[in-house]
């Protein structure tokens, strides 16, 4: 169960993480991309935080949709449309909800993946955002099915996300800028998969705090 205030908390915590890990994400992107992923994500979430107060009164779905639109119009690059679509689709998935049940949360994640795949046409194993996101959601679903709480499930989810990040080191990129490197992309972790792992870390921290 997540309230609107939990969702807002999640956004704030994630925005802080993007500011904090700006250099780290940029360094990963310099190795196999064009060295701007941290700059892009922190720019986008800085704008989100600035504009968030204007939608405080709105429903969760509107808030998520607004976050998505802000990202689309401030991030640019590949991550802008991808993260933007993810948030917009997540919002659409929970239309009209005042609070989110565990099922709502899982649906929102699934729809977010759908948004990313619609835009990016990637599947797992291509060294992208999806390589931490899809395993994380799978783990969350499994834990919830095992009767764990969302807070516990998110711990498992985050772990799976970081495993996914590790996995990206072992594979060749076939989507995004890193694909231009071919074999040379092996050995490096994917910046987008990394920023996505922080999504699950932020969600876990909120869930631990409110104890849901």
């Amino acid at each position, binding site marked *: 169960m997540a309230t609107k205030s939990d969702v807002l908390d999640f956004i704030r915590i994630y925005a802080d993480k993007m500011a904090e890990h700006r250099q780290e994400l940029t360094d990963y992107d310099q190795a196999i991309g064009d060295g701007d992923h941290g700059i892009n994500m922190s720019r986008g979430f800085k704008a989100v935080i600035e504009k968030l107060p204007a939608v405080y009164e709105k429903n969760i779905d509107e808030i998520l949709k607004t976050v998505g639109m802000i990202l689309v119009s*401030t991030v640019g690059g590949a991550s802008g449309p991808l993260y933007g679509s993810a948030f917009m689709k997540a919002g659409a998935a929970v239309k009209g909800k005042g609070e989110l049940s565990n099922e709502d949360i899982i649906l929102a994640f699934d729809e977010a993946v759908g948004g990313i795949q619609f*835009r990016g046409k990637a599947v797992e194993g291509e060294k992208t955002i999806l390589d931490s996101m899809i395993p994380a959601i799978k783990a969350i679903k499994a834990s919830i099915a095992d009767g764990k709480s969302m807070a516990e499930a998110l711990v498992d989810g985050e772990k799976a996300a970081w495993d996914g990040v590790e996995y990206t080191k072992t594979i060749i990129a076939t*989507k995004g*800028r890193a694909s231009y490197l071919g074999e040379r992309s092996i050995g490096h972790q994917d910046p987008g998969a990394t920023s996505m792992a922080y999504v699950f870390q932020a969600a876990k921290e909120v869930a631990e705090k409110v104890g849901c």
Partner: protein
Amino acid sequence: MLEGIVLAHPEYVARLEGFDVLIRADKKINKVALVSGGGSGHEPAHGGFVGTGMLDAAVAGSVFTSPTPDQVLEAIKAVDTGQGVLLVIKNYTGDIMNFEMAAELAEAEGIEVATVVTNDDVAVEDSLYTTGRRGVAGTVFVHKIAGARAETGASLDEVKAIAQKVIANVRTMGVALKPCTVPAVGKPGFELSEDEMELGIGIHGEPGIERKPLQTADEIVDYLMKRILNDIEFQVGDEVAAMINGAGATPPMELYILNRRVSQILAGKGIRVFKTFVGNYMTSIDMAGASITLLKLDDELKELLLAQADTVGFKMC
């Protein structure tokens, strides 16, 4: 940056108030409109190609970062005259997604939009399972030739078709001797020692496909030309346009030294150089390096290539 170009060349370009978009100073022209753009740091691309015979608008993102859909949408709206808009997109995941979102939004507003994706960089393997090749300096020929076609009053379909024809016939490969530094990052995208070079680089400071000890100018050209000529078939008597594009910090003298060898190789294969372009067209901030582009020509492309163009970065008198 945009401000810099507008301040310098108000007779060519104007800024679309409130957006990172440059449009022609003489505003809407009653014809199919061409919109392109991408990250900043490629000057004169893309704002420098706005003007008679080339683009109607250029959208600029942050340094090396695709512009966002809302910006592209405004550019489309600013230049559409009801005859449709062609988006010339370089093949990068980010550019494609952002421009496509803009196209969807514009279509929702009733504007006819077509897109082409340039992918001239032979350094990158083209395969169904990857994102394919990058769009690099060859894009300038797409602007030039599709722009000239639009100027003749052709339809959106016709303008798109000629752009596709250029894309099918243009190939590029580049080399860096010194990487570039994105100002916001403050350190180079890759490290190269004095006696190394990076082959198959893109235009965003990304590492290339291969690092080698520094070779002579002729050896470098031999390598690049081999890759290009392996990729597209030429017959004796074929004609090409050649572009020796500087990456930013490469002086004209060095580009001419490269071109010397390009000419030799083409002459050796019985390929006629119809027209050569040497200079900074699609740069990577302060990278030292260059790319070689060949465009295979037919009579239609030749005529359009020579048609008048008057922009900051590309002039055909």
